């Protein structure tokens, strides 16, 4: 159901809806703190296009860019994952409550059916 984190989660999902950006995130998860040119190297797209993807990832807070001398390094930031973690926990709480109810309903059906057969 709707709450503050929904819009943020949608932006996060949307940012990760692109295969190049997912590849960038996956690469940083293995190898954090790469320079922009190291990150761009395996892609067949030009550096400005890579920069645009980095802008989108930075907007949702998934990465941070830091300048060291003439090199810009890129780091993965765990902060927006908090939203995903909260969603998982909220969702699991709802299912635990539902499963309490489901178990009561199904167990009564099971008892009724056994009584009928006795």
């Amino acid at each position: 159901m709707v709450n503050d984190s929904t819009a943020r989660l949608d932006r996060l999902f949307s940012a990760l809806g692109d295969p190049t950006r997912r590849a960038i995130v996956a690469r940083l998860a293995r190898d954090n703190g790469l320079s922009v040119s190291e990150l761009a190297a395996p892609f067949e797209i030009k550096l400005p296009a890579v920069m645009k993807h980095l802008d989108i990832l930075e907007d949702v807070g998934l990465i941070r860019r830091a300048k060291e001398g003439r090199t810009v390094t890129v780091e993965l930031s765990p902060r927006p994952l908090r939203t995903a973690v909260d969603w998982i926990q909220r969702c699991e709480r709802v299912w635990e409550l539902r499963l309490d109810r489901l178990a009561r309903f199904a167990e009564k059906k099971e008892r009724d059916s056994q009584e009928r057969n006795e």
Partner: protein
Amino acid sequence: MTEATCVRRIAARPSIVFDALTTAEGMASWWNPEDGPVLAAASDPKVGGRFRVRFRKLDGSEHECSGEFLEIEQPRRVVMSFEWTSGGVPEEQQRVSRVELLLRLIDTGTELTVIHAGLYDESSAANHGSGWEGALDKLARRLAASDRLRSG
């Protein structure tokens, strides 16, 4: 995408749990996680069949969920997608949930596993499983699990 998982052992045989999960009578008994009333429930549990559950929460707000059965292997497995609406309007634009229910026969009855994926749109709901399971998702799940450990 982001996934929540719950496992529960139920003292009833899989066919009974399966019916409780998929029939209108069963869904009406559990879909609302709170004690408020279920106002309407309809279900056509076959592949491509739809279901709908409307209920009132304790705060008085009414919510409706409608969805489709994507896969059914009675009594072992059900996959469904659904969306929330409130007063006929989608609560979360383009947000579709995909739920996979797995039932396993055990000595005491049934072990039920719920895997709930929060997805961005219909196409990702359809492609789920064949699609992306990235480092991010795994990391989020690991964080959620370690949070659970901390809170006991």
